[in-house]
C-alpha cells in the first residue's frame, strides 16, 4: 500500500517537472517572441538600420526561437542568467541580494501568519456560528475581496498616519539597530500577514469544520468528551493534512502579494526589481525574476498537492 502513495507522489512530481518546462517556455515566449523588436527598443529611435541589424546578430535574435529557448535553458542550467540590458550587469549579481531581502520578508511573514491564521481558523471552527466566528469570517472575506494595495494603504493610514508608530517607507540599508529593523519590516510584514492569513483562516476553518462533521467526532461527543478534547484529540490529527495543504496553498498568495507590497513600501526585493525592469523593458532581468517567482509558486502548489496525497489515510 505504501508504494501507492509513493507512486502518486512521484507522478505529481513528474507533472510538476513537465509544468515547469511549459511555464519556462511560456515565460520565454512572452518575453522574446511577442511583437516589439528588442534590438530597436534598446538602441532607441535614432538607431540606423545597420546598427539594429548588427545588434540583432550579436544577440542571436535571428536564430530560430526554439534554438534560442534551448540556449537559454542551457545557460540557466549553468547558472548563467544573462546580462541586464539596462545596466549591463550580470542578472545573477542584480538578483542575488534582492532575493535574500524578499526571502526574509516572506520568511518573517510566514512565521507570523501561520500560527496566527491556524489559531484563528481552528478556534473559529470550534465556535462555529458564534459572534467570534462570524467576526473572523466577515473580516477574512473582507480582506480577500479587496486589493492588496488597499490593505497596505489602510495599514499606512492606521500605523503611520494616525498612530505615528511606524515609518511608511522601508529602507533596509539604514538599519542599525534591532528597533530600526523592526520598524522597517513592520509595515510590509503586517500587510502581507493580513493578506496571507485571510486566505489561510478561511481554508483552515473549512478543513476543521469538515472534520468536525464526521461520524467519529460525533461519536466522541456522544462519549462525553469535552469540546476541547473533541477538537484537539479527535478532529485535529485528521484535519492536519488538509490544514498543511491550506497553509501551502495560502503561502502561494505571497507571490502576488509581495509584488504589490514591495512596490508600495519601496522595499528593495526581487519583486520591486522586476516591476522596475518592466518599466525599462529589461527582458533578461524580467525573464529571470519571472522564473524565480514561477519556481516558488510551483514549489508551493506542488507541496500542497503532495501533502494532500500523503495525508489521505485512504491511500496509506
Amino acid at each position, binding site marked *: 500500500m505504501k508504494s501507492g502513495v509513493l507512486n502518486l507522489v512521484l507522478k505529481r512530481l513528474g507533472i510538476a517537472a513537465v509544468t515547469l518546462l511549459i511555464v519556462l517556455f511560456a515565460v520565454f515566449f512572452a518575453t522574446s517572441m511577442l511583437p516589439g523588436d528588442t534590438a530597436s527598443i534598446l538602441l532607441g529611435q535614432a538607431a540606423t538600420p545597420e546598427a539594429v541589424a548588427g545588434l540583432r546578430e550579436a544577440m542571436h535574435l535571428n536564430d530560430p526561437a526554439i534554438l534560442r529557448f534551448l540556449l537559454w535553458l542551457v545557460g540557466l542550467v549553468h547558472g548563467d542568467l544573462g546580462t541586464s540590458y539596462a545596466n549591463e550587469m550580470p542578472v545573477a549579481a542584480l538578483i542575488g541580494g534582492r532575493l535574500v531581502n524578499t526571502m526574509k520578508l516572506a520568511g518573517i511573514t510566514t512565521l507570523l501568519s501561520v500560527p496566527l491564521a491556524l489559531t484563528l481558523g481552528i478556534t473559529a471552527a470550534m465556535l462555529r456560528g458564534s459572534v467570534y466566528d462570524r467576526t473572523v469570517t466577515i473580516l477574512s472575506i473582507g480582506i480577500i475581496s*479587496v486589493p492588496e494595495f488597499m490593505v497596505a*494603504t489602510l495599514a499606512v493610514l492606521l500605523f*503611520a498616519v494616525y498612530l505615528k508608530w511606524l515609518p511608511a517607507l522601508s529602507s533596509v540599508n539604514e538599519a542599525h539597530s534591532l528597533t530600526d529593523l523592526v520598524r522597517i519590516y513592520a509595515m510590509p510584514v503586517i500587510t502581507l500577514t493580513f493578506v496571507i492569513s485571510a486566505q489561510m483562516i478561511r481554508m483552515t476553518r473549512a478543513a476543521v469544520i469538515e472534520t468536525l462533521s464526521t461520524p467519529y467526532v460525533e461519536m466522541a461527543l456522544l462519549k462525553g468528551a469535552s469540546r476541547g478534547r473533541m477538537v484537539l484529540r479527535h478532529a485535529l490529527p485528521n484535519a492536519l493534512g488538509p490544514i498543511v495543504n491550506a497553509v501551502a496553498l495560502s503561502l502561494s498568495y505571497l*507571490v502576488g502579494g509581495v509584488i504589490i507590497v514591495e512596490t508600495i513600501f519601496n522595499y528593495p526585493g526581487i519583486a520591486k526589481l522586476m516591476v522596475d525592469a518592466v518599466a525599462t523593458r529589461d527582458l533578461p532581468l524580467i525573464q529571470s525574476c519571472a522564473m524565480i517567482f514561477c519556481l516558488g509558486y510551483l514549489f508551493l502548489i506542488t507541496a500542497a498537492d503532495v501533502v494532500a496525497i500523503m495525508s489521505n489515510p485512504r491511500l496509506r
Partner: protein
Amino acid sequence: MTIAHATTSRRSFLGHSYSVVGVVAALVILAWTLVAILAPYLIPHSIGDIVDDDYFGPMRQGLWLGSDYLGRDMLSRVLMGARYTVGISLAAVSIACFSGVVLGMIAAVTGGWLDTCLSRFLDAMNSIPSKLFGLVVVAAVGSSIPVLILTLAVIYIPGAYRFARALAVNINTMDFITVARVRGESTAYLIGSEILPNIIRPVLADFGLRFVFIVLLLSGLSFLGLGLQPPLADWGALVRENIGGLPFVAPAVIVPSLAIACLTISVNLLIDNLPQKIRDRDA
C-alpha cells in the same frame, strides 16, 4: 427551505427566496453598472479640468469627493473610472468564461487525448501566478485596453475551464447524454443543448467570482502603473496617482479604494446569498 422561510430576513420572489443582504448587494452592483454606462452624463466636471486651487482638497460642497493631486474633481474621476474598471473586467470575464466553459464542455464530452492535452496545458498555465503573467505580458507588448482585456481573459481561462470541465464530466455520465449519443447527436448539440443547461447556474456564480478576481488583478496592475495608462484612469490607477495624498488622508486616495471594495464585496455577498439552488455546484 423551511429554515429560509422561518427567518424574517428572507423574502420570496419568482419562486426563489432571497436574503436582504443579497438584494442590497445586487442593487449596489446595478448602481455601479448604471454609473459605468451613464458616467459621461453624470460627471459634474470634465475629468481633465483643474477645478480646485489646492491639491488633495478635502470633501466640500461642489467637490463632493475632494480634488486629486492636480486639483481635478475626484467625483468625476471616480465615476469615469467605474467605466474602465467595470467595462474592462466585464469584457475580460466574458471572454474568459465563454472560452473556458466551451473548452471545458468539449473536453468533457470528447475525452481522450484532446481532454488530456488541454487539461495538462491549461493546468500549466494555471501555475503561473496571475500578477506575474500580467507583468510579463505588459513588459513584452506594452499596455493598452485590448491587450489588458485579452491578458486578463487568458489568465482566467484555465480556472473557468477547470470548473466547467469538472461539472460537465459529472453530467456526461448521465443516461440522457448516453441516449443523445446513441441518437447520433453532434458534439455541438451535446454541449449546447444537453450539458450547458445543466451547468449554467453554477457557471454563472463562477462568472461572478471570476469577475471579482479580474477587478482585483486589473486594479493591482493599474496600481503598479502597468494597467491603464494616463490620461485614462481606472480605480487602481486613481489610487496610484494619488498615493502621495496618503499622509494628508486625502479622500482622493481613499475613495477609489473604497469604490473597488464596495464593488467586489457586493459581488461576493450576492453570490454567497444566492438561493442554494442556483449556487449549488451539482445542481
